[in-house]
């Protein structure tokens, strides 16, 4: 048998618990997503990003640690599609590194998003700095 104090406490808690369950069923965002939410639009620059990352990966084969570190930062900032692979690259390592400045500049010229233009242009300048530091430009 419940004591008087316990019985009063259960009577107070029960409506609150029932109320909480009701709210949970109505507002659960997983069970009831707003029907008007449109799918995220495709990034119009994704092809530029993926082609640029493929060019970086293609140019990076056999790169010294400084270049690998630099391009790791660049790739992370560009956020390519998962699974992008290295583009086929001609010439020696130095030629590929010099050509990468052109590839980054060209990509910056094609990009639509101003922030991506800034990112790619700055990456080109970073690559040019590293080439100068190694006496390649």
């Amino acid at each position: 048998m419940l004591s008087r104090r316990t019985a009063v406490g259960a009577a107070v808690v029960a409506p609150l618990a029932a109320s909480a369950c009701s709210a949970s069923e109505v507002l659960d965002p997983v069970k009831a997503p707003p029907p008007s939410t449109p799918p995220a639009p495709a990034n119009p620059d994704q092809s530029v990003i993926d082609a640029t990352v493929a060019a970086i990966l293609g140019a990076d084969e056999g790169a010294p640690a400084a270049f690998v570190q630099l391009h790791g930062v660049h790739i992370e900032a560009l956020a390519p599609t998962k699974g992008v692979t290295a583009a086929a690259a001609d010439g020696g390592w130095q030629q590929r590194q010099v050509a990468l400045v052109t590839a980054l500049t060209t990509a910056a010229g094609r990009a639509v998003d101003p922030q991506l233009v800034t990112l790619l242009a700055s990456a080109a300048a970073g690559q040019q700095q590293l080439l100068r530091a190694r006496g390649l430009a």
Partner: protein
Amino acid sequence: MTTADSASTEAVQAALAVEHSAIYVLGSLGGLTSSSAAPALAQALTEAYDEHVRAREALATHVVAAGIEPVAPSAVYDLPGGIGTEKGVGAAALRLERDTTATYLSLAPKATGSDRTLLIQLLCRTAARQLDLGGKPTAFPGT
């Protein structure tokens, strides 16, 4: 001329105005530097000056091609402070190149087509010149 074309040409004109200033300041810094006492700095300043003159010509050519009169230089520009020593001159020149890099980077998205390509090419050159003046490579110069 479309609005986009106009904005693009304005970006090139803004870069041209920056080059006018850079040429004036670098010329002044070069005049304060002894080629016998500080040959490396004197050479770096001379090369930077020459490259900025070439940049100015390239930018002016783009503006003229758009059928617009290139922005004219001012008669005089403010010189940076702290340029009484060789070290101060070198630091001022490096600051100028860093500022120019940041300016080019801010202007590039406003330009289109060959204007944008030119601005990025000049951005790369000014970023590389930072190393001649004691700067270090960074992943994203100008940011």
